């Protein structure tokens, strides 16, 4: 009951933010309709583009809730995978495309099931090695720059995972497995 109330409050707060934005759009539209039309168009295009990813995330979340008991991911990554857990987080971060915010609900769900902060941080950091956009980066900054940046991102992602988990005081993670 308490949880239900808490959730309702959270949704209300988030809903209020959305309503506030709609109100701002309506007010500004009176002064500059074209500007608001363009912003709304961009928002709708972005939403349309992320819909398939959101659909995939939704299915993955159902599967996580369906098949993973609380703490199972943690146990699996710590005891069975060890350093390979870090490796898989790097590979998944590089290969899975889409804006990071669509993955927050899924990662939140995985965290509830025991995924470590460090691996979440590693996954999110490696999402910046953008394979689909590498050719654009090469066009603007050259191949050496693109390769060096990508390499540093991968190397620093591990350091990122260690520091973030350490600073966010997840004491269970301090043993770098």
């Amino acid at each position, binding site marked *: 009951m308490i949880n239900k109330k808490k959730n309702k409050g959270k949704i209300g707060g*988030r809903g209020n933010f959305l309503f506030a934005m*709609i109100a701002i759009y309506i007010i500004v539209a009176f002064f500059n309709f074209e500007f608001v039309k363009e912003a709304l168009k961009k*928002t709708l295009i972005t939403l349309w583009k992320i819909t398939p990813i959101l659909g995939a995330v939704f299915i993955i979340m159902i599967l996580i809730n369906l098949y993973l008991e609380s703490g199972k991911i943690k146990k699996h990554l710590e005891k069975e995978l060890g350093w390979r857990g870090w490796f898989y987080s790097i590979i998944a971060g590089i290969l899975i495309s889409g804006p990071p915010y669509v993955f927050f609900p899924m990662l939140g769900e995985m965290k509830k099931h025991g995924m470590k*902060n460090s691996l979440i941080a590693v996954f999110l950091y490696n999402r910046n090695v953008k394979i689909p956009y590498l050719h654009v980066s090469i066009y603007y900054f050259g191949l050496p*720059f693109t390769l060096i940046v990508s390499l540093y991102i991968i190397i620093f992602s591990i350091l990122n995972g260690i520091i973030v988990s350490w600073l966010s005081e997840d004491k269970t993670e301090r043993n770098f497995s």
Partner: protein
Amino acid sequence: MKKAFLQAVNSFRQSLPMMIGLLMLINFLEPFFRKYYSRIFSGNYFIDPLIGAAAGSISFGIPVTSYVVGGELLNQGVSLVAVAAFILAWTTVGVAMLPLESSFLGKKFAVTRNVVNFIFSLVIAVLTVVTLKFFQ
């Protein structure tokens, strides 16, 4: 199955209003930011990377946009280390998405991650340019 489905629905019910609201905010502010990118750099080799990282942190959009803006900044004479810090912070630091990240992954985690990413964007930018010069 039903329970797992409802849990996923509940997560989405919580995240979607915030996500849509933030996308509306981002697309509303982006034209203002874009207008001022080239004016904020000072020409100072030491301060510009910091300005680049700060500008990248509060900017939003797909990575391609950061490459295009970064390319324009390079053409306007902004240093490579500042542009590198800008594009790295653009993709790794998400100030606008901080409320959404906090609500799912915890405030402490989200803030720590973004602060560490900000510092790393400066470090990697410097290291990248130094490495490039080393090989040239």
